[in-house]
């Protein structure tokens, strides 16, 4: 008996396989690279090579690409990232009270009291202070993102860098570089700036109390962890599967849902062999002119997205999206 969680994010696509006792037995981390369908198929190919023939009882999809993922794989649960992250963290430790999650394009704070989400906040329209930004700067400095955190630890001082806007931060960094500060000092400054931005912006007015979980891809960055701990004044915990928490959470939710409804919609691991084609067109039905995306699997249409009125996306019968809490 296994449960599968798929988290299609802006930067990474994560798949986890849980066993009956909710232990992670397999995790796959892939770069989405703007092609969620390919990433999901790659993930399934890997899963199939290792676990062909196993019985998967429930599947859940989360992340910004959850709708497309759900259409592809036949998900039992399609849930937003916030709920998924909270569920996964509570599964790890019932005492968690604050979750700091920084992903590719989102950063979130989730406040948990008495085992339920009682407040949350996300970054607004701009992706400053998220993983994509760090990624971009690592690329610019020609440092592998994996080593980014280590660089920050080498610095004894931190260079002050404007953190409000990614564009301003970048120009501030370039100016500091031209003045001769070394990479590690600048990277540490960058980590401090992101933390400052996070606490003043997303964390504004929120009570950040221990136990704090730090998760999402950016939690791999030891420089960010240090900067946070210095600003908060206490230790943060990074769960073992910090970059898989969304997928774990949604797998748990899917399990609960399947237990209630009795069967799964899962289409099987053979999906990797299917040929998916997406095509977008402007609907001419009204003045809204929605950009509609059509997905076909082996020449049969499996889904439409992007229309506001439901003319296209209601064409195919999609299992109820309204899920149990």
């Amino acid at each position, binding site marked *: 008996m296994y449960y599968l969680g798929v988290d299609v994010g802006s930067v990474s696509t994560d798949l986890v396989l849980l066993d009956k006792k909710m232990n992670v037995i397999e995790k796959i981390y892939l770069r989405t690279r703007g092609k969620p369908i390919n990433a999901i198929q790659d993930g399934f190919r890997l899963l199939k090579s290792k676990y062909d023939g196993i019985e998967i009882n429930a599947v859940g999809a989360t992340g*910004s690409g959850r709708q497309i993922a759900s259409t592809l794989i036949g998900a039992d649960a399609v849930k937003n990232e916030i709920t998924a992250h909270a569920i996964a963290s509570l599964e790890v430790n019932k005492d968690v009270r604050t979750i700091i999650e920084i992903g590719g394009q989102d950063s979130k704070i989730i406040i948990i009291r008495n085992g*339920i*989400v*009682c*407040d949350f906040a996300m970054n*607004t*329209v701009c992706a400053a202070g998220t993983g994509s930004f760090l990624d971009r700067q690592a690329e610019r400095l020609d440092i592998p993102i994996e080593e980014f955190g280590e660089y920050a630890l080498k610095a004894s001082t931190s260079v002050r860098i404007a953190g409000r806007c990614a564009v301003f931060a970048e120009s501030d960094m370039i100016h500091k570089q031209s003045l001769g500060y070394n990479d590690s000092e600048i990277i540490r400054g960058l980590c401090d700036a992101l933390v400052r931005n996070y606490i003043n912006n997303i964390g504004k007015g929120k009570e950040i109390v221990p136990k704090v979980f730090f998760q999402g891809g950016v939690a791999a960055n030891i420089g960010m962890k240090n900067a946070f701990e210095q600003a908060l004044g206490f230790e943060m915990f990074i769960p073992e599967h910090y970059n898989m928490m969304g997928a774990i959470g949604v797998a748990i939710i899917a399990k609960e849902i399947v237990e209630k409804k009795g069967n799964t919609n899962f289409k099987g691991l053979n999906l990797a062999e299917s040929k998916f084609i997406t095509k977008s067109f402007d609907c001419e039905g009204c003045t*809204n002119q929605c950009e509609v995306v059509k997905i076909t699997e082996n020449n049969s249409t499996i889904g439409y997205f992007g229309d506001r009125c439901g003319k296209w996306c209601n064409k195919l019968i999609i299992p109820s999206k*309204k899920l149990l809490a």
Partner: protein
Amino acid sequence: MKIGIPKGLLYCKYYPFLQTFFSELDAEIITSDDTNKKILDEGVKYCVDEACLPIKIFHGHVSSIKDKCDIVVIPRIIQLRKREYICPKFCGLPEMVLNNIPNMPDAIIEPIYATNKIKLFNWATVAGKTISKDKFKIKKAFNNAMNAQHNHKTGIKDESYELNVALSGHPYNIYDNYVNMNVIRKLNKLGVGVVTEEYVEDKMIENEVKSLYKKPFWTFTRNNYGFTVNAMKRLNINGIIYISSFNCGIDSVTIELIKDKTKDYPFLILKVDEHTGEAGLDTRIEAFVDMLERRSLVENNISSHG
């Protein structure tokens, strides 16, 4: 005579007045379509880039009808209430539009001080003169327009939903389904009802505002703050959703004032801008509704894990 009325900004609230007034003067009325992609694109193209989304969209509406009419109405609304103003961008709206959109027809740009009937009539006299010389006719059109506005009820109050939220924000963000990506329908689909500021009596709003250390300078602040804080206390709702345009100076103050009162109360701010990708908005709404559901389960002493 063809009069163009752009469907942007406070048209959503005051269209009965505008429509009645000009049609009573025997003008042919040309309105723009509901906001759509083309209007948004045109608006972004013509408008100064520092402006907020609603102002950009207004430019788009004007641009879409400018070639179809003889005169465009650009309502320069300055005041709706005594000793309060609505928004500095409204004051300069005609200048922004006329200087940025090429080949504009004539425009009615007379300032609107709608603090009382007499002051509003001053606007009607000037605006009416461009179409008719008959003073009596203008007076009659004005009275009928006032009646039409008076008899027109706006606002949303959904019944029969288990969970309900107060939907707050500037009217053009709440009533423009293109801008807010059909947020009301999305909430309804998730099983959440909506109530808007028109369903709180003015007296109640006044009372809330009195408790502030200073009278708000902007009418939007007064209404949004008064409604939100009052709804939280009195209406049978589970949370508050505030739709705010990115870059809005007034909201930057209003939201802080509200936050000061909401404390732990569920409060979600949705920032809208040019985005048309809906994933970000969906995530926020869904997560908020999940939270409300779980909170209400706990409040009813039922296990949150079913």
